[in-house]
């Protein structure tokens, strides 16, 4: 015993500087995030779009609802007939395309964020309950997931929006109530793995309440995969809203939604292809950025690359 304490004493000073110089887990994570090209690209683009949406009233050169029938379908500035007055041109009612695009970003981001929040709350509680309690609860949740997956999302969403009328609130609610399946599936399997961990058993042994175990032991450990699913479902909701609006059963005119802009531009497909190109590219870039961010977060937070 005396021998061990002696060695410990002699070794301790040597170890200490090494420990201090090695980076903390937080620093390692930060380096990895900064070094991940896809993640950084996604985060920067998403942040830019978010800021543009937030400051749309300051950035937009015109009122997105203001019609000017004398100046209809002016092409964007890079076209020979374009001008700096309307950088991205005007639509079939003479509304400034850039202003509509900026306000449209608000719609897309709001729908993505709120729908993912609603479906996240539903799916996560179902998945965690199924994974933690098992047995009948699990059988029940698995059954509900199966039923949900069997329903054709686009068709059901279209039908419900048609019945309740297409407003932003209805679209968000419908998407939120439909897109919880992936949350439930992933959270269920993540919780299933955690349930038999020693620290969960230990928490049970010292008599923690179920609520405490779920919120302080399980939740922090599934947060990583939760964030990844949130990004994926945000992208999914944004694409679905655009598709619904494109089909005429989503957000209704004159609201500036990107899907609606593509749909309105469809009539001018032959002569004014830029009218679908601009909102389509915007949609593509936004979804790409969110997906790259999600993929990057998954890479960075995956336990196998933690060291």
């Amino acid at each position, binding site marked *: 015993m005396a021998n061990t304490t002696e060695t410990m004493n002699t070794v301790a000073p040597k170890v200490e500087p090494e420990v201090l110089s090695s980076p903390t887990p937080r620093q390692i994570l930060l380096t990895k995030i900064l070094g991940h090209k896809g993640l950084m690209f996604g985060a920067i683009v998403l942040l830019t779009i978010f800021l543009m949406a937030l400051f749309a009233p300051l950035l937009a050169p015109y009122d997105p609802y203001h019609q000017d029938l004398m100046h209809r379908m002016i092409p964007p500035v890079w076209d020979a007939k374009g001008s700096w007055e309307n950088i991205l041109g005007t639509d079939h009612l003479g509304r400034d395309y850039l202003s509509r695009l900026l306000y449209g970003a608000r719609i897309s981001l709001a729908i993505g964020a709120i729908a993912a929040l609603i479906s996240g709350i539903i799916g996560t509680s179902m998945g965690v309950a199924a994974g933690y309690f098992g047995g009948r609860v699990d059988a029940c949740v698995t*059954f509900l997931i*199966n*039923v949900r*997956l*069997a*329903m*054709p*999302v*686009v*068709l*059901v969403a*279209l*039908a*419900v929006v*048609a*019945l*309740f009328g297409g407003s932003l609130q209805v679209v968000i609610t419908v998407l939120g109530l439909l897109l919880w399946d992936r949350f439930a599936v992933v959270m269920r399997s993540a919780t299933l793995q955690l349930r038999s961990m020693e620290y969960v058993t230990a928490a049970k042994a010292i008599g923690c309440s179920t609520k405490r175990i779920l919120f302080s032991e399980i939740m922090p450990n599934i947060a990583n995969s939760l964030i990844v699913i949130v990004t994926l479902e945000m*992208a999914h909701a944004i*694409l679905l809203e*655009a*598709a619904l609006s*494109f*089909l*005429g*059963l989503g957000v209704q005119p004159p609201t500036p939604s990107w*899907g609606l802009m*593509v749909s309105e531009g*469809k009539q001018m*497909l*032959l002569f004014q*292809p830029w009218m*679908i190109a601009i909102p*389509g590219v915007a*949609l*593509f870039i936004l*979804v*790409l950025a969110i*997906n*790259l961010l999600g*993929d990057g977060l998954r890479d960075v937070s995956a336990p196998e690359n933690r060291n």
Partner: protein
Amino acid sequence: MLVYTLKRLGLALLVTFAVSVLSFALLYLSGDPAAAIAGETANADDIEAVRLHYGLDRPLVVQYGEWMFNAVRGDFGESYYFKLPVSQLVAERLSVTMLLGICGISFALLTAVPLGVAAAVRPNSLVDRIALFLSVMGQAMPSFWFGLVLIVLFSIKLRVLPPSGSDSWQNFVMPTIVLGYYAMPAIMRLTRAGMLDVLGADYVRTARAKGAGEFRVMFKHALRNAIIPVVSLAAVQMGFMLGGSIVVESIFALHGAGYLAWESIGRNDLPTVQALILVFSMFYIVFTFLSDLLNAWLDPRMRVG
């Protein structure tokens, strides 16, 4: 295997039952269906007449029972709009959608599997990068927009393909690409991951060690095992695709079941919408059931679950 099959069948039937209840409930989500059918100009007497004509005055359980009883025999009632049996309408349109689905999944498999294999054989090579690039693009591209871009390119600029209709095989080219491109990324990623896994396995090393040619190792030993999960994913994707064909069909005005669904929603033709929701769900349920069975047959470990 028999027990497993019966269990899965029981689950599939339960899911079908739940979906049928939900699609039936859709009729009542809007409030009074009789008022919806009669239209905005109808007075109270008209609404009452409609209610009696369609039997909407009876208890819900009776109505559901009758609807389901008839649906099992292939009778989905009468379309409010066409005044024709819904089953006839759906059957006419379904062949187009099924053809489109088969073309789409074939296109996805024929492009995604070779790409996935090529990417796995040389990880981080140019081919791998291109494959990854295509799958990232595919996930971010809105399918309705991709369809319009193809129309601009092939119908307006090059004038080689018709932009809409469903009369000849040329009408199916662009819808197939759009629908197939949607399923491609997932299939490609799974093929790549499966091949990477299998190529590191002992039996592949044994095959190489005993002097089997590279071609033989790839296709006879590796791909045969890596393809199993891909086949079941393809079955599930097929179910999703049939449900997702509604967007593609409406862009290209392809007169399939998805287009019928879109039109029927616009016309408030609820019996047709209900029938289509049930039919599309049934496709998904049947395809996942088959893929579960296929998995269990190929991999005995799955039968326990």
